[in-house]
């Protein structure tokens, strides 16, 4: 089994642990095991966040609007019939699209409790350590950079530098929100920072690279 075959079976693997063949490939492949670790981390954090508080439908609607606005998700359009599908263009890297969406969703969830506190709802503002952004590249970033290296090597340095800057932005914005949990401007800055990161993913995945 090669990496492409493994990653085609990835949804099943994440759901039920996969069969012996998948397990065997995972043990011998650093790339796929890193990918699985990264995805499981996202799934774990998402469950944790969801457990902390379920956002109102209004928030999900707002996120959906934002995702459509950011063109991370799209309405079906006949005009795109010219374009090969994302899976065709990106193959095994197509999973990064939900990762990009997860960035925005995570940002929305992290900001949400503070927004509610402004409307009079008593709210614990402190964020769990496990969702604090990391200043260095995370595994999704590394995977993205690997894909960029394969498809457009000359772009890697630019993506690497910009991801580093954006991660620093997220770190500072998060610290600002932690220090002033009721500050709407700090919350907006955090959303902006995540929006910038989402844009990098979007450009790398959906548009810019051949």
């Amino acid at each position, binding site marked *: 089994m090669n990496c492409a075959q493994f990653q085609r079976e990835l949804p099943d693997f994440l759901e039920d642990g996969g069969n012996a063949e998948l397990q065997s490939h995972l043990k011998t492949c650093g790339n796929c095991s890193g990918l699985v670790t990264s995805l499981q981390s996202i799934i774990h954090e998402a469950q944790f966040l969801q457990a902390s508080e379920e956002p109102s439908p209004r928030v999900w609607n707002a996120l959906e609007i934002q995702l459509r606005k950011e063109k991370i998700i799209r309405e079906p359009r006949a*005009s*795109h019939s010219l374009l090969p599908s994302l899976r065709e263009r990106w193959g095994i890297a197509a999973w990064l699209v939900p990762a990009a969406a997860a960035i925005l969703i995570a940002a929305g969830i992290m900001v949400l409790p503070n927004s509610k506190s402004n409307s009079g709802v008593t709210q614990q503002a402190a964020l769990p350590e496990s969702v604090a952004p990391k200043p260095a590249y995370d595994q999704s970033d590394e995977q993205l950079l690997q894909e960029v290296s394969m498809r457009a090597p000359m772009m890697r340095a630019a993506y690497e530098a910009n991801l580093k800057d954006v991660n620093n932005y997220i770190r500072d914005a998060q610290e600002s929100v932690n220090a002033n949990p009721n500050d709407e401007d700090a919350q907006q800055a955090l959303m902006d920072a995540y929006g910038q990161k989402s844009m990098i993913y979007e450009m790398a995945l959906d548009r810019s690279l051949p």
Partner: protein
Amino acid sequence: MQRSTYATELTVIALIGLTSWAVAETKKEYRFEVGPKAKVSIINQFGSVSVRPSTGNYVLVNATIYSDKVEVDHAQNGSRVDVQSHLLSGATADNSRVDYEVLVPADASVDLESTTGPLHAERLHGDVVAEGANASIDVRDISGSHVHVKTMAGPITLTNIRDGHVEIDSVSGDITLNSVTGPLVRVSSTSGRIQYDGDFGYAGEYRFNSHSGNIDATIPQDASVDVKAQSVRGQVQSDLPLQPKVHTSFLVKEGSSFAGTINKAASSVWLRTFSGKIHLKKR
């Protein structure tokens, strides 16, 4: 004798190069008849896209294709026109450039994409969306429409955008706005510099945010604004006298934030950075 041989060899090499270049470069023209408020999309991986208004209800696309590793796909559905550079086997950034010169009806909405750019649109009053990771983007003389621009590292210049709904996102590209006004002008950057030169119009909302990039706003003395500026770790400076506000959403701290109004405070201006400097200058 030896010099003569060298000269001959150089000439032959130059001729071969010129011939292959001439063979490689192809010009193609595509014309589409469209109705009012057409939607035109040009997606180009490598190369420029320049859009100007046509004189009638048609879209005219002139494509210069620089190699046989790329071809131009096009489709029309009613008043929607899609044009895309289609990379073929063996295509790389070096050999798959296409340059587009496009004429569209002035009321058309355009969606332009290119990794390398440059992207240019002018004299339109339909919506303009322009995106490209490293593309330099120049949009000018647009009125009454949405202008949405995104780059990762490419510089962005907007000039003479009137009554626009303007949204700009760039991670590290410098952003320059000259005479840009409208009900909403939002600029978000991580490390790029944001420069604004204009009067902030009337009754608009202007939000410029950056992490480490500096923000410079140059305005005339008769501008009518309610301005707030805050830098978490950088410095802020205003060359204009501001009427202090009774209430602000943050604690004003000399050197790192200011808030106040000029004249009738018609437009709201919010400048914010983490480590970048903010400078409000008098024109």
